[in-house]
């Protein structure tokens, strides 16, 4: 019944990152298998609507844009937590990735020449798009960028991209095993040789041996319970698989991004656009609290600031009660039916479909939720994991690390494709050089361990909690104490409480023991991993006594480049008592740390010189497990190329355009 099969490349995850990577290996003539919890087209990549950043500089508001400017925005956005060489590789390759998608059939929205009406900062503006750009890929503004840069396919960028890439996967004949889950990695201590799997149609276990293994399992938003915009399947299992080995470190797990307006109780993302267009936030007493708290910007203050005030209202008991937990109101009534059914059509449809309300008549229940996971499996610039040969990671599951402590909107879709291409090529190269040299007895040992884990769940009885109660308790702790605004005392409590829950998992009892896939068992097998991820995120956040990007410590409000210009690494083998934390330099610094241009202006300067910092990077990273990439570290950096980028960008042209 149990079976061992082999392939050349095993890709765990069928979202954009996994599939793009698989394509590259398949095109190189290798046998590739993709595992996915769901048919690949149902991966969460399909939910991204906003756009994909790439500096094509096609429309008027993008005039003068360049990969150099994209690099600057990305590094500044990361609050200098990014690996700048990776940000450079990313910015240089994003245009190729977007154009390649056009080649695969993505119906990108295109430039219409002649006068076009846009909404810019709430005002109607007419801009002439030049004839020579007609029909090229159009851009929109996505916040946090110097130019309009986000390429988009109407309101379904992620959907269109995923369908196009999956079409290529079908064309290339890649073996896709949907409803199949990786439970653990198979390795011999030095090299990864595939994974133990479980079929989610039948519940049957198996092993897939491979010369190279790629983890592309997406984000871990569900450790925040229902307080996330993520799909129900984003449970961070990929990061758990890697951490379970005890060899591979996870990077920056405390770096988590939040969004102020998740629809309640579903968590579905409601675009910023509704506050941009003049929406109000109200508490249970119908007070517009943002007016008093942020008189200047009111509801238009930054994501983080708005989220924080909203959380405080809820904590102060000013939320509106709902059986699933308190929420606040988003008031769009004054915008009127015309505006809501045209300019904010997606919001109107969400209200109609998921609340059954008309937003011009009724209030919308919202609250802040988790939105993006910057942390993940730590890899070098080729996407190869630290400390375990033959293992790669790409996409949201990876800490490649172009986002540092804050991801810019639209950069993550672009990352999945850029990384998929590059990592796929590296995987193909190294797979060709590797022979499958693993004893089946080692594979069987890993299979037996997973089998024992399944049995222990099925055999356990007693008065333990339900797996869902533990999941919910973890989510409450994460959103309330490891959330948007963090303090040492909250985090210390969170660590203690999470530890208790983590141990509770081993006593939890299933209600269902039916043969077959058993949905409760499937979830139970992921729960320990989720508890472990939550705990390392909380511990990492407690240890990091500064504020950087999305990691905001109320008790340490400044970014501290003298002590914390580094990346958190954590290792925690499945059988080890406690996680072990280490810190490595963020990477070679090209753009010196400075002010982001928004948010708080003050920070503690680095004490070391840039040269001294850079001098030590490679050795230190090697010491922390970095495997040498194919090209030397720093080879793609293009030092100083950003220097005149802003001058080249022609800001004057933008002003001229706006005044029309």
């Amino acid at each position, binding site marked *: 019944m149990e079976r061992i099969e082999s392939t050349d490349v095993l890709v765990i995850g069928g979202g954009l990152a996994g599939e793009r990577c698989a394509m590259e290996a398949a095109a190189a003539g290798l046998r590739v298998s993709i595992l996915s919890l769901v048919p690949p*087209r149902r991966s969460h990549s399909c939910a991204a609507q906003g756009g994909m950043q790439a500096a094509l500089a096609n429309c008027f508001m993008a005039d003068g844009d360049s990969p150099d400017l994209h690099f600057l925005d990305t590094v500044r956005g990361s609050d200098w937590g990014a690996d700048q060489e990776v940000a450079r590789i990313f910015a240089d390759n994003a245009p190729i990735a977007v154009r390649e998608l*056009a080649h695969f*059939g993505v119906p990108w929205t295109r430039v219409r020449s002649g006068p076009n009406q846009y909404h810019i900062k709430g005002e109607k503006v007419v801009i002439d798009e030049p004839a020579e750009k007609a029909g090229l890929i159009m851009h929109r503004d996505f916040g946090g960028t110097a130019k309009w840069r986000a390429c988009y396919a109407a309101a379904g960028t992620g959907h269109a991209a995923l369908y196009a890439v999956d079409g290529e996967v*079908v064309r290339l004949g890649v073996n896709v095993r949907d*409803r199949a889950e990786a439970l653990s990695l198979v390795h011999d201590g030095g090299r990864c040789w595939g994974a133990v799997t479980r079929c989610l149609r039948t519940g049957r276990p198996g092993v897939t041996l491979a010369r190279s293994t790629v983890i592309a399992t997406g984000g871990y938003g569900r450790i925040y319970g229902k307080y996330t915009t993520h799909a129900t399947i984003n449970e961070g299992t990929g990061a758990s698989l890697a951490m379970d080995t005890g060899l591979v470190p996870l990077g920056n797990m405390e770096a988590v991004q939040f969004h102020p307006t998740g629809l309640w109780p579903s968590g*579905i993302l409601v675009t910023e656009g509704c506050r941009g267009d003049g929406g109000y936030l109200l508490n249970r007493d119908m007070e517009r609290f943002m007016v008093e708290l942020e008189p200047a910007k009111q509801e238009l203050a930054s994501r983080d600031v708005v989220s924080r005030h909203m959380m405080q209202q809820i904590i102060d008991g000013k939320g509106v009660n709902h*059986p699933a937990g308190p929420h606040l109101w988003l008031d769009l009534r004054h915008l009127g039916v015309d505006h809501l059914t045209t300019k904010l059509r997606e919001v109107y449809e969400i209200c109609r479909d998921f609340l059954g309300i008309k937003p011009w008549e009724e209030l919308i*229940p919202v609250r802040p939720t988790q939105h993006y996971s910057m942390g993940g499996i730590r890899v070098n610039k080729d996407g190869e994991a630290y400390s375990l040969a033959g293992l790669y990671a790409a996409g949201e599951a990876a800490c490649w690390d172009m986002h540092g402590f804050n991801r810019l909107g639209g950069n993550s879709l672009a990352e999945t494709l850029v990384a998929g291409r590059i990592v796929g090529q590296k995987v193909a190269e190294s797979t060709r050089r590797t022979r499958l040299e693993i004893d089946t007895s080692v594979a069987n040992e890993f299979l037996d361990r997973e089998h024992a884990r399944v049995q222990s769940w099925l055999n356990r009885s007693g008065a333990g909690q339900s797996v869902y109660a533990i999941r919910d308790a973890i989510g409450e702790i994460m959103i309330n104490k490891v959330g948007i605004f963090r303090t040492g005392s909250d985090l210390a409590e969170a660590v203690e409480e999470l530890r208790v829950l983590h141990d509770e998992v081993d006593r939890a009892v299933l209600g269902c023991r039916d043969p077959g896939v058993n*949905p409760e068992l499937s979830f139970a097998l992921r729960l320990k991993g989720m508890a472990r991820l939550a705990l390392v995120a909380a511990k990492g956040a407690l240890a990091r006594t500064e504020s950087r990007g999305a990691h905001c410590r109320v008790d340490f409000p400044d970014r501290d480049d003298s002590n914390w210009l580094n990346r958190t690494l954590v290792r925690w083998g499945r059988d080890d008592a406690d996680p072990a934390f280490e810190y490595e330099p963020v990477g070679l610094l090209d753009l010196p740390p400075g002010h982001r241009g928004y948010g708080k202006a003050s920070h503690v300067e680095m004490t070391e010189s840039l040269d001294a910092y850079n001098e030590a990077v490679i050795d230190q990273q090697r010491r922390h497990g970095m495997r040498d990439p194919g090209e030397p570290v720093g080879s793609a950096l293009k030092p100083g190329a950003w220097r005149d980028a802003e001058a080249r960008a022609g800001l004057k042209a933008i002003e001229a355009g706006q005044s029309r």
Partner: protein
Amino acid sequence: MTARKLTFEIFRYNPEDPESKPHMQEFTLAEEPYMTLFRALNMIREEQDTGLQFDFSCRSAVCGSCGMMVNGRPTLACKTLTSDLADTVRLHPLPAFKLIGDLSVDTGTWFRAMAEQVGAWVHERAPFDPKAVEEPMDDELAAAIYESDRCIECGCCVASCGVANVRPGFVAPAGMNRIARFMMDPRDARSDTDWFDVVSNDDGVFGCIGLMACHDVCPKELPLLEVYAYLRRRALGTAFLKKA
């Protein structure tokens, strides 16, 4: 205001369990504000029967995981509000697909086979050149392609289709929509004669008997009636050309 009591009659069968026999099982639940079948089914599973099988992923009507028969009509459960339903709700799995268990069916295998059958990818004219600027495309055309690219492969049209339920090789409305999507894309190198072989047989457009229930059930409101008419026109046109 006291909450309404909802009764759910749910189809149960676990093919992996030799003891299991197909039957309907009843659950009751107090209704909540803004309750969708996503929340209701998860509450039932978490509080009443942890073995209940169903599929959700995005819970925002974009991934196509949650197609099921709600009171006999195929639709997306995640965007079905209980406030739009009567006190008793009957739930069945989508027909035409292989049953995995309870409300969960195997759409993945079906859609992969369909994609292979119709060649659901751009048949390229030339290899990608990473150094070249993209080929321009009229925005109207891009928008039209996007419109038919919007299908989320939830399987509701397949489940509603009289032919797909009895003829496994039939590409069904979702397949026809895919064909139309690539036919109108100038980046695809296939000619009308290439398409003729895909379209003009009983597994293609001529297999359709015109009941068009698909058009009414599509949760994304794709204009399947127009798609069908477009394909028939194209297929008949090619047939004439072939004869001439």
